[in-house]
């Protein structure tokens, strides 16, 4: 474990090199940028190997690098903590991160800010690694803020467009709102428990606070607020769709390996505190399921391929929060792992599609791309099936099914949450199928003559990532499908399960139901995609009207009309309500309030000396009055 510090240090070194040496040859910059993560990945693999071969005695190891702040009894060190949980995290971050970096070397080839891009990406990965390895809250905060800063830098990477800059500021400010509350939560923990060390903190909390006590609820709620911001959950989710302004590999990194999963990590890491605060834990589940549904509805109506994926991330993270809410910590982590692989795959494949489309992101203008960009198509298909949770090999199926079974059987779960989650499954399958249909099948609508989906640097990461997206589910399968339990047993020590599992028959039944629902969603999504594509073509070409029968057939047996009334209409309605982002109102309200107060207070700044002097007098009178009469 002595090498642990190298894991974040290598990308950090890469960042430093790339920043200091400003005029690098492209190849060298790529070598440093990708190589630092690659080395970090190798170190991580070595650590994982030794962890598995000779696990540390207490199940965890920590490594103090240096003492950062020492003030009396108060001591904060730069120290890293490794247990099976953080090991899984760093494995995913470095592996997925490495392939995203590799892909970027191809994707960003012509960009002016090539070296700058890799510098930020390295810093981003390093921050995330610091976050998950941090031994104390302060260091965790450093990683947390670093992640925020890098997301700001990367979303605004193409800063010449003011819209991108706005999106960057939005992401930063919205997540900061949650961070502020989280900071207070950390302070509450620190002052009431007297330490910043996370493990000490958790054990003290468990021993000192009774379950359901006010302080535990307050602490959990405040931490949750921070997690909601970073993980883009209701009501702080609004920054995520706009964050698409950054280059596609950035989106992949934000959505798969870093940033949005930080909230999941934080809640899972402090799960002992959440377990002491049942109302907050319930809130986690409810927020998760609400985000899952709202984001799902939004995803169905989006035209921009990356926005669909963005909303899908929100809804998938919603699953993780739902799992956290019912106490299925391990299942949440497992969904994080599978999601990291299939979502990065989806984003990178989408990036390839976008390249092929000459930076066109409108789904309605695509179509028929399956034969023009075969690598992107097949890998995207794998990712999409994983996300839609279609059995049996696909990784997303195992993790989602694990979550669903716990939602049903955990004491904190129940049928209501289960039904809502099932609706989420339907939505997920629908928007995924619609996406695939619109992008890859049907007639080519506005596809350019020459299509360049990218070279080997783009194809290789896609193919490599497709493998875990397909097969990763095998390490943790339901009992009726082999009952492999590798993952659960690996993280068991850190992330216990919420209770006893239900009988296998129930599990089988649940699995069948969810599979059926997913399949139904696929059909629905396919139909939706076909009808929308046709409508788009019809609008464009304004075909002459034929016989009624012809029109009936052209409109797809009237299904269009039916779907329009029965499904699309309500969907649209829900989505329209949500498209203006109901929850955005809170953020906007805060901004508007600040603006209003600013105007009011600015009225006082008249520039007139007489008024300034009078204000001095008013203040004097007020203070004298307070001192005398209080």
């Amino acid at each position, binding site marked *: 474990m002595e090498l642990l510090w190298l894991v974040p240090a290598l990308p950090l070194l890469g960042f430093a090199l790339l920043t200091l040496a400003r005029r690098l040859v492209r190849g060298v910059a790529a070598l440093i940028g990708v190589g630092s993560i690659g080395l970090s990945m190798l170190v991580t693999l070595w650590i994982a190997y030794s962890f598995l071969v000779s696990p540390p005695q207490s199940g965890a190891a920590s490594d103090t690098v240096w003492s950062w702040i020492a003030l009396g009894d108060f001591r904060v060190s730069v120290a890293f903590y490794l247990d099976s949980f953080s090991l899984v995290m760093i494995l995913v971050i470095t592996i997925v991160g490495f392939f995203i970096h590799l892909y970027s070397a191809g994707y960003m080839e012509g960009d002016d800010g090539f070296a700058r891009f890799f510098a930020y990406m390295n810093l981003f990965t390093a921050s995330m690694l610091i976050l998950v390895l941090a031994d104390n809250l302060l260091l965790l905060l450093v990683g947390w803020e670093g992640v925020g800063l890098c997301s700001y830098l990367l979303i605004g990477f193409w800063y010449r467009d003011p819209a991108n800059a706005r999106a960057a500021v939005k992401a930063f400010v919205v997540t*900061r709102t949650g961070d502020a509350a989280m900071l207070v939560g950390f302070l509450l923990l620190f002052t009431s428990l007297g330490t910043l060390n996370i493990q000490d903190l958790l054990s003290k909390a468990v021993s000192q606070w009774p379950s359901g006590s006010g302080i535990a609820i307050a602490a959990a709620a405040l931490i949750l607020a921070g997690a909601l911001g970073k993980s883009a959950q209701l009501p702080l989710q609004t920054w995520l769709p706009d964050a698409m302004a950054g280059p596609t590999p950035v989106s992949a990194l934000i959505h798969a390996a870093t940033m949005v999963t930080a909230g999941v990590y934080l809640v899972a890491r402090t799960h002992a505190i959440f377990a002491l605060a049942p109302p907050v834990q319930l809130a986690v589940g409810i927020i998760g399921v609400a985000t899952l549904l709202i984001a799902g509805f939004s995803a169905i109506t989006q035209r921009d391929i990356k926005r669909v994926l963005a909303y899908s991330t929100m809804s998938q993270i919603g699953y993780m929060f739902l799992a956290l809410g019912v106490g299925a910590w391990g299942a949440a982590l497992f969904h994080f792992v599978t999601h990291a692989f299939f979502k990065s795959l989806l984003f990178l494949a989408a990036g390839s599609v976008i390249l092929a489309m000459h930076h066109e992101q409108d789904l309605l203008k695509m179509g028929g791309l399956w034969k023009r960009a075969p690598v992107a198509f097949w890998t995207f298909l794998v990712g999409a099936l994983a996300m839609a949770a279609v059995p049996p090999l696909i990784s997303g199926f195992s993790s989602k099914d694990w979550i669903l079974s716990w939602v049903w059987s955990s004491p904190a779960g129940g049928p209501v949450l289960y039904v809502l989650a099932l609706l989420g499954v339907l939505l997920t399958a629908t928007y995924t199928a619609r996406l695939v249909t619109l992008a890859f099948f049907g007639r080519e609508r506005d596809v350019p003559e020459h299509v360049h989906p990218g070279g080997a640097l783009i194809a290789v990461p896609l193919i490599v990532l497709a493998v875990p997206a397909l097969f990763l589910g095998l390490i943790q399968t339901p009992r009726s499908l082999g009952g492999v339990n590798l993952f659960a047993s690996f993280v068991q020590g850190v992330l216990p399960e919420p209770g006893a599992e239900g009988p296998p028959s129930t599990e089988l039944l649940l699995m069948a139901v969810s599979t059926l629902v997913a399949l139904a969603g696929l059909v629905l999504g396919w139909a939706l995609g076909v009808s929308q594509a046709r409508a788009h073509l019809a609008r464009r070409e304004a075909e002459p009207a034929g016989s009624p029968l012809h029109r009936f057939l052209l409109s797809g047996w009237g299904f269009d009309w039916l779907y329009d009334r029965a499904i699309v209409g309500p969907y649209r309605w829900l989505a329209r309500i949500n498209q203006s982002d109901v929850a955005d109102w809170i953020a906007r309200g805060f901004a508007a309030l600040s603006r209003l107060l600013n105007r009011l207070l600015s009225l006082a700044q008249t520039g007139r000396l007489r008024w300034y002097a009078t204000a001095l007098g008013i203040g004097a009178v007020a203070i004298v009055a307070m*001192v005398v009469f209080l």
Partner: protein
Amino acid sequence: MSSEQILALLPILVTSAASVVVMLLVALKRSHGLVFGVTVGSLLVALAAIGSSVSVMPQAVSSLLIMDRFALLYIGLILAATLAVALLSYAYLESRAERREEYYILLLLAAAGSEVLAAAGSYVSFFLGLEILSISLYGLVAYRRQTPLGIEAGVKYLILAGASSGFILFGMALIYAEQGSLQFAALAAAKGSSFDVVSLVGFALIVVGVGFKLAVVPFHLWTPDVYQGAPAPVTAFVATVSKGAMFALLLRYFIQLDLYQYGAVVLVFGIIAALSILAGNILGLLQNNVKRMLAYSSIAHVGYLLVALLASGPLAVSSVTFYLIAYFITNLGAFGVVGYLSSGEREAEEIDDYRGLAWRRPWVAGALTASLLSLAGIPLTAGFIGKFFIIAAGAGSRLWALLIILVVGSVVSFFYYFRLVLAIFREPDAGAQVPYPSASLAGGIALSVLTLLLVWLGVYPAPLVNLLGGMTSGLL
């Protein structure tokens, strides 16, 4: 006066003697370079003199000045900040059609006044130090006496500072008439369990004057106007040294008289702190003038400092001082960049002047960005550690309401700090490029040292924290 006392006073003596020497030099020959050299040299000597003063402290020099570790620490801070201001002023003054030499006399005198404030142990030295500082500042703020804004700022500052001096004096007079002594220590001994009403009113009036100098709500209205109208290096001085000296005095006064036990006093300061944080940050929100924006941000930062002051306990003095040091470095850096980019004819104060700075002056842009990040309290800067200490101290004293306001205010402040950062990294307009003056060596050195300190304190604050723990323990 014994030789030990003279030794203890050495930093103040050197500073005041330097002002006289500069004046004599001006009488012989006007040479900007020479005067600048003497000023910088004497400030360095005064800094070195602190080393010899340490050997004889704590030392009460008559009843007026108390040269203890606390005073010497703040004197060192004041001298270092004045040195930075002097370095930043050279190029600024050089590019201006204006007499330059008087500036250094006034700067040295203002520094001397601040040092007296930091060491004041009685109302007499409090008053005299304050007035030396104020009157030098009248001259400095209005130094651009040919420009309407300079005059406007000067008149506003003079009238309001004069009125606030009146408040302070009357408050002191009331306390003196009631207590019969002008010394803080005697008051602390005599007051027993509680103050009488007259003394309380007197104390409230002193708070008005102190609040004015610290620019806290509701005495903050002058701040943006004076910051805007004053030359940029003077603005840096007003924002840092003048406030820091006043804060040192407030801290000593607060602790010596143990004002924590008076609910009303604590409440007054709590309300002032809360209002300053909120009003300062909200006023900065839509500000397009960088100097005014930084003025509003400094109002909020004094609010943060007051939170730390109210959080009594072993962390309070250290955390106040640490934050103050971080605040000094950060604001000197920010205002220093403004001064560094201001040319003979115009101040670089509009946000558009900073557009694309990163492409035209990457190092200066780096320094400004670092300062802004530190103001915002982003980790790995001095500002973050400072804010962390404040929050830790506040949480230790369970000042939850204030902490929440502090956090809300910080969130609001990100908006305007990052607005400026964004402008810095925007593509510069091809057509309308603001002319920046040529780079100056002295200013460049000052800015690089400040930026390095800012990062160093953010990454490895432990040595300074240990030092502060030792330095300020004498007060408790």
